[in-house]
């Protein structure tokens, strides 16, 4: 019953989104007014490199092959999926001839580490504090916190990260301003290396965590203020149920449900934010890789990053969707 009504539709949707997303990613460069090969050559020329006309045609052929642009669209499309299923996104242009997948694999742990910890922290923290602030909405601390959040929340990832960089990297030199670890340090499981990594991740993590928590705080507070007015909260108060119990079991527990859905829906944005933040702090993750790919016009790398992101995010959304019934009996027992 549950499998048929809940699981299968979601799985279908999952594969459909991935299929459509990847298809769109495949067609965008092909439908665009300039194709990647022309762009790359123009790029090289614009950097002042002299290109011998004799070699240009060879280069066009090589690039066409490299970007998988030879043959009919249908062949290319089929080929694209075949390669994708093997995790083959071709070779990178700016770090020729390293395969794209190797570059992404190298960058991935940094991004996942940053993203996972800050997202979990900000979601949990934002929801609990926001929930308490929403429950005690007319208390002074709640209002003060609200004002602070109102000042932070609207600032986009890039500007906020830059602000932190200026403040803690230049004005007060508290933290390193770039990289994932001190240059030259050999990765090892020693305390000093781990501390070094943590120190380098401090600013990017801080900016992601603060912005994330502010955003969850705000939505949680709004939801809780609505939940507060729900009959079942009023009823528990009428019944003299202890306040702590009301806040956690009645208010926050119920406010969490829409927040789980919201988390699923904002994962894409959260990832975008993390990538942008990495760019600001030259953090060696996927965002930084993306930046290099953009500046060098490395299409294979960009396609690889986008395709993997789509798969990763839709998978995460699916997981969140599948976990949801654990928290909501109304879906579990129809």
């Amino acid at each position, binding site marked *: *019953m549950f499998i*048929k*009504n809940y699981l*299968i*539709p979601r799985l279908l949707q999952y594969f459909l989104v991935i299929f459509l997303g990847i298809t769109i990613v495949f067609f965008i460069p092909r439908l665009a007014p300039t194709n990647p090969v022309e762009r790359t050559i123009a790029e090289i020329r614009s950097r002042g490199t002299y290109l011998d006309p004799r070699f240009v045609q060879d280069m066009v052929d090589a690039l066409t092959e490299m970007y998988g642009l030879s043959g009919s669209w249908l062949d290319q499309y089929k080929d694209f999926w075949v390669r994708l299923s093997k995790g083959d996104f071709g070779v990178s242009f700016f770090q020729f001839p390293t395969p794209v997948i190797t570059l992404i694999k190298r960058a991935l742990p940094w991004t996942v580490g940053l993203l996972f910890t800050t997202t979990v922290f900000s979601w949990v923290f934002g929801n609990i504090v926001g929930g308490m602030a929403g429950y005690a909405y007319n208390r002074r601390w709640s209002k003060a916190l609200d004002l602070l959040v109102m000042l932070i929340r609207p600032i986009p990832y890039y500007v906020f990260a830059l602000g932190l960089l200026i403040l803690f990297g230049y004005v007060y030199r508290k933290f390193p301003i770039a990289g994932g670890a001190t240059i030259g340090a050999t990765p090892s499981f020693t305390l000093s290396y781990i501390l070094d990594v943590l120190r380098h991740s401090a600013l990017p993590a801080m900016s992601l965590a603060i912005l994330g928590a502010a955003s969850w705080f705000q939505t949680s507070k709004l939801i809780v203020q609505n939940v507060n007015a729900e009959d079942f909260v009023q009823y528990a108060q009428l019944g003299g149920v202890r306040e702590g119990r009301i806040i956690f079991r009645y208010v926050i527990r119920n406010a969490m449900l829409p927040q789980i859905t919201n988390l699923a829906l904002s994962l894409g944005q959260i990832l975008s934010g993390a990538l942008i933040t990495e760019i600001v702090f030259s953090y060696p993750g996927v965002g930084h890789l993306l930046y290099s790919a953009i500046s060098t016009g490395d299409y294979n790398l960009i396609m690889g990053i986008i395709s993997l992101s789509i798969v990763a995010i839709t998978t995460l959304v699916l997981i969140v969707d599948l976990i949801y019934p654990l928290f909501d009996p109304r879906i579990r027992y*129809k």
Partner: protein
Amino acid sequence: MPAGCTRKGEKPNMQPILETSGLTKVFYRGSLLARDRIVAVDKVSFAMHRGEVFTLAGESGCGKTTVARMILGFEQPTAGEIIYAHNQEKWHPRVWFTQRIQAVFQNPFETFNPLRKVEGYLFETVRNYGLAKNRSDAVELINAKLEAVGLSYGEIEGRYPSEFSGGQLQRISIARSLLVDPSVLIADEPVSMVDASIRMSIVNLFKRLRNELNMGILYITHDLATAYYLGGQIAIMFRGNVMEMGPVQEVLMRPLHPYTKLLRESIPEADPAKRWRGRISIAETEQEEYLRAGCKFAGRCPMVMDICKVQAPETVAVEGVLVKCHLYTKPKEETKEVS
């Protein structure tokens, strides 16, 4: 668009103004892969006449509102027909239908958009049905209809729904439906949300409209006392089925069906001398009753027989009342009571 607006064989006089024949609505719950089939309305047939109140009564979820929604075209019937008396053609635009059949809803505070002035609906009705040549004619017509319900145009001009009481809004709603001079007025629980002290004035208004305008009124309610007061015909519905149908006097004062009896006994009468005696048991599973193969009431019927659980009873006529119960389809001797 109500389906199957076919013309019935013409009978010159006592021709029903509105008939349903085998009207059925099936709802599906759940997703495409696993769904429950719920028969919300099961082969409901009745006929109503001009100058008569026809009451559809029953508890929540009995399908009475679905019947009304199908007649108004808000819901497509799964099967069956809705026949309007002078219907000449097979298909009509919705406007054709709503010019003849109008409706008043349960919640007067929801009948009008709270962000719009109420007069807007009256003028729109006049304009959309081409009832007046110019604005002053329209105002005159609107005022006449408002006066018919005890209001005047001056009282409603330029005002928003929140400025009126529930009773006033219900009157405006009735006035709006009267603009097109309908032959049938469907009133879906029209007084259940109106203040107690003025409830009867609205009920009396329906009585007057029936007499003066010779309208057919389809009164949908859970309140058997007002149904009795209004008179006419009544159909008692339970889980999509009409259990008993006939003149109000007969059905409510001498109920045949065990369900009608239970319903009738459960109404608290405003008389301390008539307090309830004896206890009742209540079944809880509405879903189960919908899916039940035999009689839907078998689960809590005090007179239940073996056959009730396996076979749905036919409708039989007993002294001018139609009743759907095995007690009346079988000879008495076979009745075996189970308590």
